[in-house]
């Protein structure tokens, strides 16, 4: 284990960013989000939850996938994929890191999404253990240890030091390049912090959330529960929950006419909350917000686990709990449906 004084952190960031692009929580216009670090940038490592999750780095909100060029009456397809240079993603919390696993199962399964894969492979992930989780956190429910995330490197931080543990070969390589900034030690401090964090987690109000109903009930029974109607009635059909969610992976493919002879085909995040989400030429098979709302949670709690060996596609980051404009969230769904099990 290595450690570095907190006052030297900027040196660390500068050192990393000198070699490879460094993405980490930065504060811009008052909000913490992942961004490209440049010397002098206002970092926001201590913010528990960035507004958007870290998935942006592998699966950006908007991404060009191909370009078309017309010349007179001919059209050519331009492959714009380039090799992605190695980069460092720094400060990823355990929940967000777990979310990568959820995304990998979608994007890296056959057929592989090469856009995602290229970025995923190029990235060295430095995870960051939580010290003070808050009441909206419930990662424990999904078997995540917020005090001990993995990734290529894991860091802990207290008021004095940042502690550094390499986990993988990629991690070692990164460690090597900045080793000179570190001193040895800190195991004990980390251990103490972990114990304390775990104690807090035990006490969090959602930590005892029971998901067994979703594991043990017939899909259609859940689907047909009458409570969905009441649960969804305040839903505004905005996409906040899906866009702040670290595991939501839906996208739309659209085209943009950049000039008369140039068309950009890009993909961008889509939300199952939107009324045109399942719009097809024949019409839309989800016509009410209840159906759309149900879809989102059925996907997280039932469909995805069904297809992925029981892995829920929620990691308990609690962003939706904090950010839903009308305070609807997955916890309310789990409690309402799971609380009264059908006989």
């Amino acid at each position: 284990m290595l450690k570095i004084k907190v006052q030297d952190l900027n040196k660390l960031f500068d050192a990393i960013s000198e070699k490879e692009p460094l993405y980490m929580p930065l504060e811009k216009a008052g909000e913490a989000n992942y961004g490209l670090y440049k010397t002098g940038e206002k970092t926001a490592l201590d913010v528990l939850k960035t507004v958007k999750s870290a998935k942006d780095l592998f699966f950006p909100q908007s991404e060009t996938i191909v370009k078309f060029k017309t010349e007179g009456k001919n059209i050519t397809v331009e492959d714009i994929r380039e090799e992605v240079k190695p980069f460092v993603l720094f400060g990823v919390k355990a929940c967000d890191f777990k979310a990568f696993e959820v995304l990998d199962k979608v994007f890296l399964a056959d057929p592989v999404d090469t856009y995602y894969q290229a970025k995923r492979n190029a990235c060295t992930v430095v995870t960051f253990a939580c010290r003070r989780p808050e009441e909206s956190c419930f990662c424990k429910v999904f078997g995540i240890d917020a005090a001990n995330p993995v990734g290529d490197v894991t860091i802990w931080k207290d008021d004095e030091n940042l502690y550094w543990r390499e986990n993988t070969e990629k991690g070692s390589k990164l460690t090597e390049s900045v080793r000179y900034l570190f001193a040895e030690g800190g195991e004990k401090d980390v251990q103490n912090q972990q114990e304390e964090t775990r104690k807090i987690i035990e006490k969090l109000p959602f930590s005892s959330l029971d998901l067994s109903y979703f594991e043990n009930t017939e899909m259609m029974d859940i689907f047909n529960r009458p409570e969905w109607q009441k649960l969804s009635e305040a839903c505004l059909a905005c996409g906040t929950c899906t866009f702040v969610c670290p595991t939501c992976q839906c996208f739309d493919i659209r085209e943009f006419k950049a000039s008369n002879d140039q068309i950009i085909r890009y993909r961008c995040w889509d939300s199952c909350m939107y009324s045109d989400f399942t719009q097809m030429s024949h019409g839309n098979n989800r016509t009410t917000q209840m159906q759309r709302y149900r879809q989102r949670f059925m996907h997280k709690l039932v469909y995805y686990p069904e297809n992925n060996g029981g892995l829920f596609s929620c990691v308990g980051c609690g962003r939706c709990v904090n950010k839903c404009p009308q305070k609807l969230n997955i916890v309310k769904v789990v409690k309402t449906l799971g609380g009264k099990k059908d006989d």
Partner: protein
Amino acid sequence: MNKVEELIVKRARELLSSKEVDKVIGWKKGEFYFDPSPAVFTSEEELKDFVYNGFCGANLSKYLVQELKKGGKIAVFLKPCDTYSFNELVKEHRVDKNAVKVIAIECQGKLDIEKIKEKGVSAVTETEENGEEVIVSSLYGSAKFRKEEVLLEKCLTCKSKKFAVADETIVVNEMKETANDRFSGVEELERMSEEERFAFWKGELSKCIRCNACRNVCPACTCVKCVFDNNASGMATKAPADTFEEQMFHIIRAYHVAGRCTDCGECSRVCPQHIPLHLLNRKFIKDINRLYGDFQAGEADEGKNPLIEYTEKDADPTAAVNGEVRHA
């Protein structure tokens, strides 16, 4: 249970039991004290979850649009600012006022849980308002704040505590008008240079994730199909693929509600990135007041808004932009 909540629940119970209304739109308790959600109550039994506390900031007027379609008579609880939205919805034929009983209720300004959390108080269990003070109890003890520190932005600059419409009112304590000038934020920006303003908005708007919460919560945004969702409009966008699209979305959104926006402040309340969207809407309101005379959307449920109105003596755009003219 506070006195106002008590009266509200009592009234809701009466209305439902007497079948005077078929449903009541109010707020329902959440997982915590501070996360009530808007809800529709159809039985007395359901009313046990009814809540009205410092965190009931949501404007319920827009829910009438969807609920009225389902039929029946509805009672809705509206805070002073929400009553203006109601009138605009009536004016634009989105809501049939004869099918609605408006119960206007006391509001002393609603609290912003994020501001409280920023002050280091988590796990809030209750709040108590005491004049200009708010006592916040949490699992970890209690803390006292000046109200100003923890109010929602929209309540800090509350435009009026007057009810624009009310079939009934439930008011226990006097509601004091705020002394804050709601246009000071706009003025501050106006004083900046073009470059500074551009930098400010670029910083703010680049945070936008196009979740559409601002649009979807807005009581003035009730289009059957929004231009941004309509691929045939030539303006449809789903995600901010370019900074221009961020600008465009917010310009068009604000323009489309210009003259109709009551300044209910919901857009800023719900923005997950805390973009001060009210500063966009208020610029239009301020300009309208300056150029065409004071106008408060939603003050009445009929009449024309300033953009579907004109006088022969209106200012020319150049003079208007230069700020040279003022309504006589």
